[in-house]
């Protein structure tokens, strides 16, 4: 039996990266990308091995890290005009710095929240609420309530009883029935059979009977076009009547 546990320990991939950056005392402006990527991937692997659910954003970040790593490994093209090649880590660093700002801000807010929660607002009930005319009831006593309740009960509709009838038709019966319908003929229309049936259950069971007969190779079925009538063709060749498939 495996358990699916979701740990809300890290708020997201950025949070996780910041954890590594802090733990390993990494300079956020000069990230050793191979090291960080390895730590990150190790953690993801651990989460997956522990069967912990990972949001898609974590996988996305893994791909981003690996792309940065690859870009850093590729040799930079030499050119006469010393074009400033953008550090592939720049975008990531910006994301991390931005996120960190707001993370710290959220901690400030948490402190404010805690401080302010010590003060409870004084709010006496609004005088207008006290004089809501709808709330006023005339003199009513328990007896009156009882009478009303009794009247209510009387006016309620009584319990409905439904009778369920046991289905009397069996597949074998219908197989016999279909055989009788054939009456020596080689072929038979499904609609002809249905005309003799009385209710939906019989139609369903008859259909099942047809399927059973097909399975037993007793009959074959054919249909000219979609939604056309279905022809049942008897498999026992009494006469060599080969009817061209109409």
């Amino acid at each position, binding site marked *: 039996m495996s358990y699916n546990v979701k740990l809300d*320990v*890290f*708020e*997201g*991939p*950025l*949070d*996780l990266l*910041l*954890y590594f950056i*802090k733990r390993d005392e990494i300079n*956020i402006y000069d990230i050793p990308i191979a090291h960080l990527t390895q730590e990150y991937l190790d953690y993801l692997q651990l989460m997956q091995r522990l069967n912990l659910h990972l*949001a898609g*954003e974590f996988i996305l*970040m893994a791909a981003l890290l690996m792309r940065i790593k690859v870009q850093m490994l590729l040799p930079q093209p030499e050119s006469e005009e010393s074009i400033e090649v953008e550090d592939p880590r720049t975008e990531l660093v910006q*994301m991390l*710095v*931005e*996120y*960190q*700002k*707001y*993370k*710290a*801000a*959220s*901690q*400030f*807010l*948490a*402190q*404010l*929240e*805690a*401080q*302010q*929660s*010590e*003060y*409870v*607002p*004084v*709010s*006496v009930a*609004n*005088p207008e609420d006290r004089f809501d005319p709808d709330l006023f009831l005339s003199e009513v006593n328990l007896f009156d309530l009882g009478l009303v309740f009794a009247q209510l009960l009387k006016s309620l509709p009584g319990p409905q009883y439904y009778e369920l009838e046991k289905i009397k038709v069996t597949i074998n019966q219908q197989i016999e029935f279909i055989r009788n319908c054939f009456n020596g003929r080689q072929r038979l229309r499904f609609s002809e059979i249905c005309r003799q049936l009385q209710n939906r259950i019989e139609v369903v069971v008859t259909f099942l009977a047809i399927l059973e007969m097909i399975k037993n190779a007793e009959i074959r079925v054919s249909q000219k076009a979609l939604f056309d009538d279905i022809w049942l063709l008897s498999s026992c060749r009494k006469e060599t009547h080969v009817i061209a498939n109409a």
Partner: protein
Amino acid sequence: MLSPTHRIILALLMVAREPLTTSQAAVCLGEDLDLEAIINELNQFFDENALPMIIQPLAEGYRLLTRSEYAQYITRLYQSRGRLRLSRSALETLAIIAYKQPVTKVEIDAIRGVDTNLKPLIEKNLIQIKGRQDGPGRPLLYGTTSYFLEYFGLKSLKDLPQLPELESLTSSNEPLGIETTLNPN
């Protein structure tokens, strides 16, 4: 010690369900007044008489509150309701909205690196829709509410602390990735 005006303002503060503004007070009294001065005098009165209440400037108005020393007793009165603090992700989202408003959900998601659910904050009346951004899709813009200011004990958005610089962040002792516990100071 308290003039009739003081007492009227105090009565208004007792009954008001939101911070009382100067204009509201003026309308109720039927004349202009220096609400700030009256509030200060009331607070002085409370102090001198060791009364358990205080008036705070909150959300562009004034609110009468019980003093913090009595919080423990009040929580016992409302035993069933535990102290519900906002989650870390809620606080992060709120911080982004508070400092960057008006801001779209996409911008919030981009900073956090995760998909944000804004509904709980809307339901708590801490953020609200402030309009739509011009441009493709005309996405919704979010901002904080007046209640947000009350909730965090702020007079106005200007009282939000400055966004910290990177250096001061590493001074935090809290281990990241675990629910932060707050040290009361």
